């Protein structure tokens, strides 16, 4: 862990922002996740790292019952309000992805969106998600990611540590393929996507020292980094590529 700061400390202060964050509530991207999940109406859903509830609320209409867990109570209170405002029913629990409070094979669908990069032990958490997934069930992951390039790997992970001191690591597609195989799931679909985002949006919630560090780092980006990032400076604003990845993987009968 970069500086020992806990996710619930960072996100307790940012819960209000995440309800309105455009990249996190992007309706098209959530709709694509619903399509990738191929949810079945009799399934129960678990959303791990539910935050303010966007993912659980997008998937909930397609399944029989939904549960969202998070480490941060402020996030769940926002999720509770959002669900009430939309007239949707989701059960919210404070729980840890590393020690899920559910019996084996309880869920047809386990989703984890924009949370894996915070997990101290991502493999341990994935094993837990597989444990609570029923045979034939689907694990749906969406997260920040990085291209298969060492320099961009280091740069993007450094920017994310400045953005959020509880950041652990954003993974390459190849790392996700290895992790999914290691926990015994069959990868059904994997899609990467890029958003060209302004630094002012990326850095929202970060302190002035961290924002200054990001600006300085972008200002001295190498030609190789500039090309990958499609880096643009517009006055005081920097725009650069952010990579994301979505995947769906199936728990085959007899696994996990």
């Amino acid at each position, binding site marked *: 862990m970069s500086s020992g700061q806990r996710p619930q400390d960072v996100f307790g202060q940012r819960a209000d922002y995440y309800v309105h964050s455009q990249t996190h509530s992007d309706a098209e991207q959530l709709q694509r996740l619903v399509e990738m999940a191929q949810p079945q109406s009799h399934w*129960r859903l678990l959303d791990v790292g539910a935050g303010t509830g966007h993912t659980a609320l997008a998937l909930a209409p397609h399944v029989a019952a939904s*549960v969202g867990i998070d480490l941060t109570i402020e996030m769940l209170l926002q999720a509770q309000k959002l669900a009430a405002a939309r007239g949707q029913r989701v*059960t919210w*629990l*404070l*729980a*840890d992805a590393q020690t899920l*409070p559910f*019996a084996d094979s309880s869920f047809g669908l386990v989703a984890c969106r924009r949370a894996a990069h915070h997990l101290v032990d991502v493999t341990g958490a994935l094993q837990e998600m597989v444990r609570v997934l029923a045979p034939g069930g689907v694990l749906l992951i969406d997260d920040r990611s990085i291209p298969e390039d060492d320099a961009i790997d280091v740069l993007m992970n450094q920017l994310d540590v400045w953005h959020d001191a509880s950041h652990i690591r954003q993974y390459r597609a190849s790392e996700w393929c290895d992790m999914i195989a290691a926990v015994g799931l069959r990868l059904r679909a994997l899609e990467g996507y890029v958003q060209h985002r302004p630094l002012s949006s990326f850095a929202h919630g970060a302190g002035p020292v961290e924002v200054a560090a990001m600006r300085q780092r972008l200002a001295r980006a190498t030609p190789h980094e500039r090309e990958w990032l499609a880096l643009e400076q517009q006055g005081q604003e920097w725009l650069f590529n952010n990579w994301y990845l979505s995947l769906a993987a199936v728990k085959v009968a007899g696994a996990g």
Partner: protein
Amino acid sequence: MISEELLAILVCPSCRTKLQLIGEHWLVCTNPDCSRKYPIIDDIPNLLIEEGTKYIHVQISDLPAHPTR
């Protein structure tokens, strides 16, 4: 309120034994060697192990009727 359907799949995050709903505000581990007790506050159960550990030595009859954060 915790539904029967949810209660059926909930387990203690520490020992994975079934939880029992006591009143409206407590989920209690049914394993006597564990005895963790998890409060439900604002309709949100706190199922973090460290929270349940706080109440290991509190008798069920002594649990606060309306736990707060």
